[in-house]
Structure formats: structure tokens, C-alpha cells
């Protein structure tokens, strides 16, 4: 039994239960704590990662089904110690609060920036329907995303 994962380009072999949510393997076996298990229901987005380039709540993906797919977590989106475009825009826009939702937001917004360079305010809101911010900083997050799009 067991499965192997490729996360941010690194390989890991795991002997965990095949239905273990990917988020738990990322945190407990790979020590990648950016993805946060908050609701475990697919609705808050705090655990969002890219699976083959698509935003995916890692609380709902059985780790064994991530075998053979390219996983990117928030830690893998920018070179070590640097910020990617959306991270820099969030910082410049004071759109960072408690940070619980931010890793997931950054993952969803990085996907939007790379796939929809022409995204409008409405597209940004639609892309964030799976990311809940309890600190309710949505307006600034949308503004920061527009800034990141404009500085492309």
C-alpha cells in the first residue's frame, strides 16, 4: 500500500491511510503548514492548493488520489523569501489581517492572475467564492488583485 506525492517539486512517499485528506499529509508529513484545515468541508478555502494547476480544497482530496498529480502549496508559489505578484499587491494594499484565510486566498488569486489576465472585479469575486475571510477584508483583497492585474 502507500502512495507518493509531488509537492512543490519535492517527492514524498507516505504509508498513511489512503483517504487521509491531503491537507493532513502536507502539514503532518511534509511540514508545509500554509494550507490550514479550518472547516474541513470544502467551504472556507483556507486549505486551498493547486492540483495540476487547479485550485482544490485539500481537505476534500484523499491523499492517495493526489498520487501522480502536481501539487503546489502556497509555499511553492514564490521563490524562497520573495513575494509573488499577488502577495506583493496584498501587502502594498494593507489587505493582510489575521492571515488565517490568506494562504488559500493567495492560491486562488495566483490561479486567477495566471489564467485570467483580463479579469474584472466581478471575475475576482467569482474566483473567491470558495475562500471565506472571517476578518471580512474582501474590499481590500479585491482592490489588491486589481492592482496585481494592472502591474502585470
Amino acid at each position, binding site marked *: *500500500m502507500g502512495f507518493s506525492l509531488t509537492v512543490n517539486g519535492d517527492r514524498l512517499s507516505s504509508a498513511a*491511510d*489512503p*483517504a*487521509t*485528506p491531503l491537507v*493532513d499529509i502536507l502539514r503532518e508529513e511534509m511540514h508545509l503548514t500554509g494550507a490550514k*484545515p*479550518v*472547516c*474541513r*468541508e*470544502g*467551504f472556507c*478555502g483556507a486549505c*486551498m492548493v493547486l492540483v495540476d494547476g*487547479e*485550485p*482544490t*480544497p485539500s*481537505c*476534500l*482530496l*484523499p491523499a*492517495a*488520489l493526489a498520487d501522480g498529480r502536481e501539487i503546489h502549496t502556497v509555499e511553492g508559489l514564490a521563490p524562497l523569501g520573495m513575494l509573488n505578484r499577488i502577495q506583493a499587491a496584498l501587502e502594498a494594499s494593507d489587505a493582510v489581517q489575521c492571515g488565517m484565510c490568506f494562504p488559500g486566498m493567495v492560491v*486562488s488569486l495566483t490561479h486567477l492572475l495566471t489564467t485570467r489576465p483580463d479579469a474584472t472585479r466581478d471575475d475576482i469575486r*467569482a*474566483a473567491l*467564492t*470558495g475562500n*471565506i475571510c472571517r476578518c471580512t477584508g474582501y474590499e481590500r483583497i479585491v482592490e489588491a488583485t486589481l492592482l496585481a492585474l494592472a502591474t502585470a
Partner: protein
Amino acid sequence: MISGSPIQNIPVSARDAPASIYVAPSLAAALDALNEYGPAGAPLAGGTWIMRSPIRHEPLRSHYVAIGRIAELTAVRIGSDAIEIGAAVTHAALAAALAGLPEFAGLAAAAGGSANSAIRAMATIGGNLAASEFAAADCVPALLCLDADVEISGRDGRDRIGLADFLAVRSALAPGRLVTRIIVPRAERKTAHARLPLRRSGDYPVAIVSLSLSVDAANRVQAARIAVGSVEPSARRWPRLEAALLGRPLDAAAAARTAAELTDEFVGRDSVDAPGWYRVSVLPGLVRRAAIAALGS
């Protein structure tokens, strides 16, 4: 339950761990595996319902057969008489495949407006129909009013039954059997799907009205199929409202008034996100919204 639920952090150790997840490369391999596992096994499509079993305090099965990579189950075929939707087609893929086909506007709205964008890219139509404890499924009422059939396959062959009959037997589907296709006849009609979530997106709908209407040149209703979801434990049609609309010009306000007189046939289900009476009380408003959308379709 989604809305109002507390933050959940169920430890992995509390899960009733399955022994295996087998990724089936073909339909035949999936049916063989399901047959071998019998009652200890089940299909796993998008996993968006199964992976939340611990939160619902439901034990996981010992063996899952993952069907998401079977080419035959992930295709939508648009023919001249019918469309055939593979059971493992995701909500997002279905909505994209139906764009530009006005007769399926209701189904496209159901698939493309459910959940949130990340979930729509995982959740499948087969999982939506087969999750028997899930009252708020969007695609079920949308397909009920489109007169859809469900194809069920086993190693011994395939059966095709109407969706309403499938809903009645789905919790007792024999081990080794799998929903493989949903077949929807094509027809000239106006369709719409109106749902009321508590927040704009992400939450389950409190109530759903899907409708499919054929009208003549004077806009009089010649045929009507109307289905209600999320109000009772399983979606079903609203035959008295269908009959009441026949022969009359399609008028949203009048349809809503008629609906208000006929809501007494529904007994709403209570749950933490909404009481049963509320689910029933919003139906006339949803009928009005659906009729307006249908008139514009």
C-alpha cells in the same frame, strides 16, 4: 451541514479509515472491483460528499473505487435527440458543455451555480444524484423537470430507469452497480433553475424550483414540468402547480400567486440552517423568479 456549522477539526485518528482506494482505469475494471468488494465497497467520484462523512458521523466504507479517470464516464455527448452525460462529469464541465444550448439553461444554471468554483470542478453529476441523504442537490430537480433517465451498469449489463424511480431506489442500489450515464431528451422548451441560498454562494440552497415549459405562439403553456428541491428530504415534482399552469399564458406574478395557493402539499424539513416552514414559504417567490428566467430564455 454548511451554513452555521462550527469550525470542525476532526482528527484523522477518529476516522474509520478505509483499507483501500482503487483508481479504476476502465469501466470494466471499476465494475469488477465493485463486484468483488460487495457491500464493503462504494464508488468515489469527486469525493466532496464522501470526504465529509466524519463530520456527518457516518462511517467510511472499507474500499472505494475511484471512477474519475474513466474516459467513458467523463464525457458529455450532445446528440440531436438526446444528450448523454457521463456520471463522472463535473458540475463545472457540465455547465461548460451546455453553454449555448438554451433548452438546457436550467440544468446549466443548476450545475454552474452550485457550491463554489473549486467544488464545482470536483463534484460530479453522478455523485449529486447518488448521495441519497443529500436533500439540497441542485442537479436533481433540474434533471427531474427535463425528464431524464439514469443508466445503471453492473457486470451483468445495463438498465435504464427514470430519474424519479432512481431516486426511490438509490439508497438500496445493489453492490457492484454504478450509475454510468444520465440521458436527457432534447425538446424545444424554456427551462430555468431558481435557488435560495442563505448567502450568495457556498451555502446549500434552502429551497430550489426548477421548471421546464413548452409554450405556444401565444405564450400559453402547453406542457409543464416543475420540480422542487431541498424542501423535503428528496426532490420531487409539483404536479398540482404543473396542471394549474396548463393552457394559461405564462405570467410570472400569476404563477407565483397560484403557487402560493398550492404550497400546502409540501412538508418542509427542519435543519439547523432553516426551519421547514421557511423552506415552504419561499417557494412562490422562487416560482416567480424561475418563470421570469424562463420567459427570458
